[in-house]
């Protein structure tokens, strides 16, 4: 096991090193643009997973928090005349606003479970979209334009890239901490059987709500960073139903409720989607995206990582059995040794 842990740590170091030097090697702005998009989805997919993957409450309304953060950023940067690195100081504030929105949303939506919860998150999404298209503070359907950051054009993308990278690493680390903690255990107990969890003394509502608020906080920051990067906020792009679907797909692809799963999903699917969009017209990429989604759900329902882990365990068990069984062992002895190992 220690060899595996060393291997895992080495892999992590290599991954972090690649993330750190990526913009120095690939200076092409299109490459860094893809990379920033991907990192933002790493953040959001991990944050989504921290709530939905751990608790089993599938949210299709995270765009509400993403969009709230984005619009807060757009309005605040304009009204308070903040630009450049000063504007980055608004990110935690944007996260806070998204977290504040998550409190009433959670108080209403988390009273119901399963289908009804999913549907209510969708409804909140539509309310947010409607509000953004009609309120005057968001500029309505004509949108808002953010101040353009005073960065040198050759390395324009780099501050965004590194900020997104730092946020992504922090989010994944936080997800890891949550999963290992007593709190994470409570969340997963809720996922497996909420009534039993409540019976065992988990205060389910505060646990669920705080997970949603935490997730919304991170998602809001990601939205704010993204909108400052692209420079415009339109209701149809800020509140995009495909955004929710993409995030969910990433988590499912990698493995719902795991730490590395959403990261892997974002790293694979976001560049793939960007590439598809470049290669095809908008409608074709929508069809392909839907088809890809169906393929993943039908053939990899538990995600790449859990499926791979299962095969690995199976393979190891076969090897171990072969090693265990010396040529002359009788079947009854074998059954005994197997029974013993399964009980332990």
């Amino acid at each position, binding site marked *: 096991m220690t060899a595996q842990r060393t291997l895992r740590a080495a892999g992590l170091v290599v991954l972090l090193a690649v993330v750190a030097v990526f913009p120095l090697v690939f200076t092409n702005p299109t490459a860094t643009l893809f990379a920033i998009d991907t990192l933002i989805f790493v953040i959001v997919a991990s944050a989504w997973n921290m709530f939905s993957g751990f608790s089993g409450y*599938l949210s*299709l309304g995270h765009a509400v928090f993403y969009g709230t953060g984005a619009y807060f950023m757009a309005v605040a940067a304009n009204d308070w005349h903040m630009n450049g690195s000063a504007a980055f100081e608004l990110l935690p504030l944007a996260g806070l606003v998204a977290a504040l929105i998550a409190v009433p949303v959670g108080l*209403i939506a988390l*009273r*119901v479970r*399963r*289908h*009804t919860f*999913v*549907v*209510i998150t*969708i*409804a*909140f999404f*539509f*309310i947010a979209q*409607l509000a953004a298209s*009609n309120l005057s503070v968001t500029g309505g359907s004509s949108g808002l334009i953010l101040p353009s950051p005073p960065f040198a054009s050759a390395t324009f993308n780099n501050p965004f890239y590194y900020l997104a990278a730092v946020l992504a690493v922090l989010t994944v680390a936080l997800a890891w901490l949550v999963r290992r903690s007593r709190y994470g255990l409570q969340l997963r107990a809720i996922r497996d059987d909420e009534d039993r969890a409540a019976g065992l003394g988990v205060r389910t509502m505060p646990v669920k709500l705080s997970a949603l608020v935490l997730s919304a906080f991170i998602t809001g920051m990601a939205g704010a960073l993204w909108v400052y990067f692209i420079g415009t906020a339109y209701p149809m792009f800020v509140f995009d*139903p*495909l955004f929710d*679907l993409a995030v*969910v*797909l990433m988590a*499912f692809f990698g493995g*719902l409720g795991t730490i590395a799963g959403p990261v892997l999903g974002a790293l694979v699917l976001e560049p793939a989607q960007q590439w598809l969009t470049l290669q095809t017209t*908008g*409608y*074709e990429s*929508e*069809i392909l*995206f*839907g*088809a890809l*989604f*169906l393929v993943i*759900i*039908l053939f990899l*329902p*538990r995600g790449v990582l859990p499926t791979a882990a299962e095969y690995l365990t199976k393979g190891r068990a076969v090897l171990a059995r072969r090693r265990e069984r010396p040529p002359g062992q009788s079947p009854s002895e074998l059954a005994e040794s197997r029974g013993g190992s399964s009980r332990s």
Partner: protein
Amino acid sequence: MGSEITYAIAAGVLGGGVYALMAAGLTLVFGVLDIINVAQGILVVLGAYLSYVLYRHLHINLFVGLLITVPAMFGIGVVIYWLFIRPLRGSERTSMTLLACFAVALIIEGVLYREFGSNYVSINAPVTSASVHVLGIYLPDIYLYGFGLAVLTIVALYLMLYRTGFGRSVRATMQNQTAARLIGIDVTRVSALTFGIGTGVTAIGGMVYGSISGGFTPNSGYDLISRLLAIVILAGLGSIGGALAAAVFMTTAEALVDIWQPTWAVAVFYLAMIIILAVRPSGLFGRRAVRAQ
């Protein structure tokens, strides 16, 4: 002002009948299969486009065209069930089926965009422009025909559910799938047919929707599904009668608010839903009440 209110109420009630029909399909599928078909909205739009093509290009009367579009939508529903819903099993089935329906919706939307583009189209049949003069208002004929058609279909659904052997199998499956299987009901077949029926009604809903709405695009599916979901949640999932009441209530309320607040009228749907859920999480006509019928 008085005639405006009369018109709003008339249009709201009559239009509500059509939404009730679409929502009935959604809630029936939920009751039997325990899935939420979020593709229902885009399926209605697909039905509307089918009627549009038949009428505008092949010059088939809208009502005669239903003889083609209803079986077609029924077939599409059965195929969707067989290919994408039936294989999904296990503990995550609830969320998986919902996502699968969402993916199907995306594919249909993409195909519609490809075929018809993103411009608004409308079914301009004589029946959509003629109107009758009642109670001091001019009401387009299509509202009356659409409402009548929706009521007939809902009555037919009820008769099927409560007066036929197949309906008995459907209700048994709704109550307890395992027990239904044990007494020899082919649950997969019942599920496939129910999904087909739930989709088949979108052909009728689509034809009327396409005629009473000023125009539609493939994007209209989002607007429709958000209303339909609000209706079935407000009614309580699985309740057909509740969906009827909720649909009429919501569309009438929306039409009334629309008189003085056109931009926010659609928010009535969501607000009503959220207020009800905050008070009564199982919806107005919760599942248990329906099961007791």
